């Protein structure tokens, strides 16, 4: 794959690294994630970038033992979906033992790097 950045997505990771994560919100109040020009719920093209609420709640998780080659050195690792209110996000859970990951856990966002590739990884850390 090329070394080019993914505009919108890498900009979001840059912002998250500065504790300034955001989401996209249309005039009807629907939340979504970049890169995006059109609200997927209603087709509105008026998208603002309000700050993402600081804390999310894990709604489901899994511990992956058989990874793709991009995460070979990282496995086993926990992936979770966390609800931040206007949007949910998928991220890896860091900062606690795998067996302690559970639904209802309060997390905030961090950006880590894959041990395998050095690429940035959206990560959840317990609050």
């Amino acid at each position, binding site marked *: 794959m090329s070394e080019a950045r993914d505009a919108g997505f890498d900009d979001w990771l840059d912002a998250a690294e500065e504790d300034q994560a955001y989401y996209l919100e249309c005039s009807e109040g629907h939340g979504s994630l970049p890169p995006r020009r059109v609200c997927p719920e209603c087709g509105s093209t008026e998208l603002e970038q309000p700050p993402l609420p600081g804390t999310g709640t894990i709604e*489901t998780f*899994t511990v992956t033992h*058989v990874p793709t*080659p991009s995460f070979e050195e990282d496995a086993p690792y926990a992936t979770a*979906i966390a609800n931040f209110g206007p949007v949910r996000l998928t991220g890896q859970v860091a900062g606690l033992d795998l067996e302690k990951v559970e639904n209802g856990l309060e997390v905030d966002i961090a950006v880590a790097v894959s041990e395998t590739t050095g690429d940035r*990884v*959206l990560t959840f850390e317990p609050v």
Partner: protein
Amino acid sequence: MSEVRVAGVGLTPFGNVPERTSRDLFGQASIDAFEHSGAPRSDVDGVLYGNFMGELSEHQGHQGPLMAEAAGVRAPATRYESACASSGVAVADAVKRIRNGEDDVLLVGGAERMTNLGTAGATEALAIAADDLWEVRAGTTFPGAYALMAQAYFETYGGEHEDLAHIAVKNHDNALENEKAQYQRAIDLEDVLEAPQVSSPLGLYDSCPISDGAAALVLTSESYAEEHDLDAPVAITGTGQGGDRMALHDREYLARSPAARKAGEEAYADAGIDATDADFAEVHDCFTIAEVLAIEALDIAPVGEGLTAARDGRTTADGETPVNLSGGLKAKGHPVGATGASQIAEVTSLLEGAHVNSDAVADATTALAHNAGGTVASATVHVLEVVE
């Protein structure tokens, strides 16, 4: 509106044949489909071919014409790609083309070559059915995404891994005599529960295998079948397709499949039936939890009760609505691009009395085929009926 007949079906054995190209696999399936149909290749108006990962596994794009050629057909050809629903959507479009009078004979199917990639390579290839930026780059694998759904299901409705294990045991039992199946081998609950974890709570035996294989169908209009005196007693009487947001985290529900529900409702209305009319179903059980979500979306089981359907014998071969009599993706195998068409092939054979498991549904006249892509951002449902 013309009725659509399934005039011919062909399947390669599904399994581990890394050296065989997809053109070879599809060519083989097409031979059986044409022989079964009685229609000549020269009457084919078009080829609709499903494939997902051909660029990654064979460095091959533009596969439509290649597969028409492999089948000995000189007709315009189009490749359909909707992840694991690739040939399901090909069938859905073929049904519409025949119904609106555009075409009389279509060769429809799909193939996938996967095992040459190895486990890591195939895991990587399958993952691209998810949102690359927001799911795959966080480490989501295909089993991992279904594991998230399984965990969400347990959280919402209760249940445990052992409930899922009954589904794997059932589908292996169904495949025992199916010579097309990758695994003709019985397993028990302990095998499932003690298998290595892939992505918790799902283990190796909750997961379909990595498979090579092809499926081909010859679909014709009713008028063509009658004029040419084809022996084609089974028709596709209902078709439906549903879609959803790409990433699991963007969906309203983490443990339901609204795209499959929409596809099912559309197919039932199209055929003029409801779920209780279905005598049996082939559903997309890429993982044990996927069968649960499928039968709930199709109203074969109420929401929250699909988990125990296999355990309680409601979907076993002798149950009220047998599910995956072929062995399903779990035991028959899942060559991704072939799966949707292979379900139509198996349902047709079961209804015709030509399948090794036809005795389990000897009086059946109506059945379903449900095919899903990704974490069900794409779904098709077809209703098949014996019409003569």
